């Protein structure tokens, strides 16, 4: 029996970068901030390398260098790099403004420099800064030129010639993802299918979503839920939210911010400006614009669910003020505290009970 579109999306999501088989050169991307269109314009396929598939084993060469308080995604990436998960990739690009991107880049570079790990795919640091000043835009454009040179070296093509077409393709993918968001599917399904695109080509992704939506089951009604947190790729949290209500606004880094955060602009200049000025980025400046954007997007929810990774240092500063701002609008915020690496049933049950109480939804 042929694999359905939904099954293909689920499989891509589960397998992550390790399972992505492509004809074109593969460029790994760690963290949000690099518009996918720049990579596809160079004839390559961008693949998220931040999220790990299940079952990553610590590498004994890497483990002595991983502090216990390192971001989980950065640590997981380093172990996978050591295990050869990205052998055969044309290059790996790290978004500096991602909360774990710089650490992952520096550690990978240093592990190679001191001879702990062998050479592998070339590494590239992508410094797109998140504000709208003229000096920052000039700098960001110089970074785009540096990326163009890197892609030329690693894939044989820069992004300039193919950019217009790549932006059109990304635009079609964004349309498909927006239709997905409006289809009223369970949060877990929408989360999985949308993020599956991080390990598919944009055209394939859009086509699979279009095919899969028709056969999907709509979610049951319930209170409108908002979600804010550190990066999490675990669907278990979404299964739990599906039991309570309808997840309408998902603003964690693997939530609705992608691929929308990479849209905009008819050309390179416009694209870079659009990504740099998107306020839904923790390092967006002026510094208050991130929290203001969160507040605005979450203001119409019936309840907002929040959590943090144990060693994050960004969202935790915003949460008390965000909670107060939302409370002033009559929106309760349930702070679940630190999200475990693999939320177990007891943790999820306790979280569900707290959210139900706040949203006044009986069990």
């Amino acid at each position, binding site marked *: 029996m042929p694999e359905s579109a939904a099954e293909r999306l689920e499989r891509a999501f589960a397998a992550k970068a390790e399972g992505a088989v492509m004809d074109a050169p593969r460029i790994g991307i760690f963290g949000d901030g690099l518009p996918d269109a720049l990579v596809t314009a160079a004839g390559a396929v961008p693949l998220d390398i931040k999220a790990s598939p299940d079952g990553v084993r610590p590498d004994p060469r890497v483990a*002595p*260098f*991983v*502090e*216990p*308080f*390192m971001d989980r995604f950065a640590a997981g990436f380093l172990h996978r790099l050591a295990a050869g998960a990205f052998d055969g990739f044309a290059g790996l690009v790290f978004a*500096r403004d991602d*909360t774990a991107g*710089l*650490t992952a*880049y*520096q*550690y990978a*570079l*240093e592990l190679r*420099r*001191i001879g702990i790990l062998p050479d592998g795919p070339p590494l*590239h*640091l992508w*410094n797109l*800064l998140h*504000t709208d*000043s*003229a*000096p*920052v835009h*000039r*700098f960001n454009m*110089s*970074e785009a030129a*540096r990326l163009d040179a890197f892609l030329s070296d690693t894939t044989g093509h820069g992004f300039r010639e193919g950019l217009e077409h790549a932006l059109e393709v990304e635009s079609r993918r964004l349309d498909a993802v927006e239709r997905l968001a409006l289809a009223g599917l369970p949060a877990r399904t929408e989360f999985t299918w949308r993020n599956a695109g991080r390990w598919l080509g944009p055209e394939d992704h859009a086509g699979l979503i279009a095919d899969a939506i028709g056969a999907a089951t709509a979610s049951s009604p319930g209170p409108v839920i908002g979600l804010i947190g550190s990066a999490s790729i675990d669907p278990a949290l979404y299964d739990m939210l599906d039991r309570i209500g309808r997840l309408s606004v998902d603003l964690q880094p693997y939530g609705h911010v992608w691929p929308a955060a990479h849209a905009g602009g008819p050309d390179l200049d416009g694209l870079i400006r659009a990504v740099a000025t998107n306020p839904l980025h*923790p*390092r967006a*400046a*002026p*510094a*208050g614009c991130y929290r203001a954007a969160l507040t605005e997007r979450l203001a119409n929810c019936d309840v907002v669910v929040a959590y*943090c990774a*144990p*060693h*994050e*240092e*960004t969202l*935790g*500063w*915003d*949460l*008390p*003020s965000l*909670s107060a701002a939302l409370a002033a609008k009559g929106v309760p915020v349930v*702070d679940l*505290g*630190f999200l475990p690496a693999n939320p177990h049933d007891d943790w999820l049950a306790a979280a569900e009970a707290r959210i139900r109480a706040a949203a006044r939804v009986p069990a």
Partner: protein
Amino acid sequence: MTCARAAGDYQKDWVRGLRDRIKGGEPFAFVNADTPHEIFHHMDVPMVTNQWWSALIAAKQLAPHSFDRMAEMGYHAHLPRYSSLPLIAALDAEPERQPWGGLPAPSLLCARQSSDEHQKIFQLWSEATGAPLHLFSAPGIPDPQPDWFDAARDDWEAFYGTERLDLTVAEIEVLIAALEDLTGRPFDRDGFAAYMDAIDRQERIIGEIADLIAAAPKCPMRIGEQMPNVMIPQWHRGSDWAISHAEAFRDEVAGRIDRKEWVCPDERIRMMWIGAGLWFDTSFYTAFEESHGAVFTWSMYLPFAADGYIRADHGDPVRALAARISAMNEQLHQPPWINAWMVREAKRNRIDAALMLVPEHDRFSGLGTLFAKHALEEAGVKVIEIRSDMVDPRDWDREAMVARVSGALDAW
């Protein structure tokens, strides 16, 4: 009188003057340590440094209350502490629990986005006080070369990259314009060139002191005495007093070496303290002298003066300043810079053991430590990790820590 005492007295007078100016209503800036202080100094804008204020709160044993309050305010327990203590103390609004009875609202805030938390912390300050926030960008360096301590002194254009420096210069110019508005005074560019030159002279003198201490047969000055001697002039860098003090500091160290006045005549183990100060328990640095003949002869503050600050101006002092700050904090913490520097310093100081402060809640400082540990061990230095915090004593068990370090040193 030792020069450390003289520096302390000068600082007390200066602090009194600063406090009087600030309490008298004069505009002042509250800034992070890795921002261009030189601009504030040169424009005579009183300035309080976040990390200095944090250390002051901790030294006065006022930090535990603030950190307890931090949790009550809803900030989670793993957020950074060194850079947030002043904010939390201010938000707590209990002036009697702060040095000087607390700070009035600053007129301007300045931070660099070297670490994710800085813009968040300073944004909260800005919201609490209404002061405008100037943020400096902190793009990463794509191809970090380990030998920054040599390469960045002169050829910093190539080392840090023209585009990064263009950006930092542009952001410094925005700050200059803001301070011109605040003070009503123009920025004196000729005077700034002379001022930057004076700073370089001062840092070269301090570099000579680092060389003297490294080459001396035994340690002539404890790190607890080195720190005020180097850091107080650093807060006043480029001033006549600071240069004069640096010279006195050098002469005192040279004199002690000539007279063979050693901290511990029975010195057997030479140690380095890696990381920022243990500000709530600075006497810990001397805890192993009598028992083991183990002396902390090195902390980062002295050698960083020369390696981190000297930047040839090449006719453009604002750009040289941009080079100074464009990776200042990163060089102290991130690979490959921190490990390469630690090894260079350990070798020239003939270090036997390193105590490495690992602040797990300040990831910017805590990450990279295992690379430094590995590099030092490869170089033959024994490394003892200390999981604690620069300003939060609540989990600090001095007795247990002394026992643990003693156990490691017993095996010598």
